[in-house]
């Protein structure tokens, strides 16, 4: 029987009462305790200064690795501050969490919104050991106040933050905060040049990550694999969020140069392997570039060289939207509307992948040469 760690009792806060944010903040303060210093690091995320303040160095170590390529000097006036702590290492009380009822799925997500405050609680699991010798993911809480530009990320036990959250931290916080600024977090990769690049979309198994990571051995620059931030106005522009890339273990065979760069190759049993691009290809990763096209990837059995053909905007939206929207974990039309605007501004192409992996960046570069010389 699953050993739930979520124990909720007592009276709920009054509806509309933001006092619970003070309790969240107090939990962080308790975690900081008598620590002589509070690790702080700052990053330019979509051109905005985002500062992390951790109650313990372990939190900073685990949750900042994927942002290293965006690091900048710590300032006195960041645009967003994210507080990081946990209860196990920091010996701090849990912050307020929702009534989860009978829900037991570790991936269950409880979403709350009132005005400028959005919060999400990931149920995670108890401390039982899963198949493969790994422990269940930790319960975790994400909160953002978009008016006060303050956010909080708490984990019950930072040592159980799963690899996918270490590879792409604060997805909900950044999604909610950036969206309030007209920037959308999309489930897509991006490669290109300073003159312009492409968004790479596709469902799991379509070859999206293979295509993105294959470009590391080419002159094309890398902005992301799984998630990127995109602005539609004044012109379509992509921003790197994370240095990480994820690939199914059996797909690494197609990209043998990745083998030495795998960050979790020894963890056996994980669903995906992770690479941190900035650690091995520091000259290939960039913070942003203008967007020229959207590519949807598809593996074609029997094909040798990659080929690109134009498709309808709706086909592009169908490739981009479902996986993005279904991972945002909130309701609402606005993420879909933003993506619709994007596919109406950019041409959409199908990227058909064959056995010749080297032909993938060649095909993309050829397309960009044609597009970057077109009047915009």
């Amino acid at each position, binding site marked *: 029987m699953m*050993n*739930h*760690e*979520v*124990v*909720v*009792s*007592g*009276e*709920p*806060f009054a*509806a*509309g009462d933001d006092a*619970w944010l003070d*309790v969240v903040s107090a939990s962080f303060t308790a975690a900081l305790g008598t620590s002589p210093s509070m690790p702080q690091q700052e990053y330019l995320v979509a051109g905005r200064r985002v500062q992390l303040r951790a109650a313990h160095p372990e939190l900073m170590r685990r949750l900042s690795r994927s942002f290293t390529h965006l690091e900048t000097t710590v300032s006195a006036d960041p645009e967003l501050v994210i507080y990081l702590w946990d*209860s*196990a290492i920091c010996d701090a*009380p*849990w912050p*307020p*969490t*929702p*009534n*989860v009822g009978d*829900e037991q*799925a570790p*991936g*269950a*997500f*409880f*979403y*709350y919104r*009132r005005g400028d405050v959005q*919060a999400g*609680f990931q149920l995670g699991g*108890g*401390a039982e050991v899963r198949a493969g010798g790994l422990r269940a993911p930790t319960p975790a809480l994400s909160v953002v106040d978009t008016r006060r530009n303050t956010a909080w990320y708490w984990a019950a036990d930072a040592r159980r933050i799963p690899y996918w959250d270490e590879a792409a931290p604060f997805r909900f916080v950044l999604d909610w905060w950036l969206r309030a600024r007209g920037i959308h977090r999309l489930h897509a990769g991006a490669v290109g040049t300073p003159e312009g690049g492409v968004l790479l979309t596709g*469902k799991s198994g379509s070859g999206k990550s293979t295509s993105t990571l294959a470009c590391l051995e080419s002159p094309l620059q890398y902005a992301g694999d799984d998630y990127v931030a995109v602005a539609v106005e004044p012109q379509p522009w992509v921003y790197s969020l994370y240095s990480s890339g994820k690939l199914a273990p059996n797909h690494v065979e197609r990209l043998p140069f990745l083998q030495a760069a795998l960050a979790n190759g020894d963890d056996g049993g994980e669903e995906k392997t992770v690479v941190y691009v900035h650690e091995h290809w520091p000259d290939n990763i960039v913070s942003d570039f203008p967007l020229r096209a959207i590519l949807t990837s598809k593996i074609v059995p029997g094909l040798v060289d990659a080929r690109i053909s134009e498709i*309808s*905007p*709706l086909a592009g*939206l*169908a490739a981009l*939207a*479902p*996986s993005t*929207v*279904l*991972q945002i*974990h*909130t*309701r*609402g*039309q606005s993420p*879909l*509307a933003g*993506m*619709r605007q994007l*596919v*109406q501004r950019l041409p959409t192409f199908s990227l058909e992948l064959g056995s010749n992996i080297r032909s993938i960046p060649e095909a993309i570069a050829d397309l960009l040469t044609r597009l970057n010389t077109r009047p915009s």
Partner: protein
Amino acid sequence: MSRPNGHIDDARLEVSSPQVIHETIDGEVIIINLATGTYYSLKGSGADIWELVQQPAGSGESEIIDALDARYSAPRIRLEATVRSFLFELVQEGLVSPAPEGSDAGLAEFLEPNRGDDAQQAFEPPMLEKFTDMQDLVLLDPVHEVAEMGWPQRRDESTSPAS
């Protein structure tokens, strides 16, 4: 509400917001059901019917049939059977549901009544193309929207979480 072989009634139907979201590009529609992780595409007469249903007051069967009758050259009896069946399918998929009682009963009409010229078009039955390859995202990671009174909840200091 109509059944595939039943009598037409005029219960107004509307998009099942907020769990169903949709966008239209160049006359083609993409629909995502956030509750099930299923997504759909529509074009042609299916997109036309969706355009009518998504209007603020929704639409009833007879209104939809009248609008299609004006646009397409097809026997009305064929339109009736096709629309009835298609609306039933949309209801079964959870994409549309009865509009609240008392909704404004304005006539349903296309926002763009003419496509290029005034001639009626040949009628192709609506087809709802369904994709279920993303359902795991919802099944494995169910999302619960928490009413204000469900969260946040104070922790009872006398009860400590098991570790």
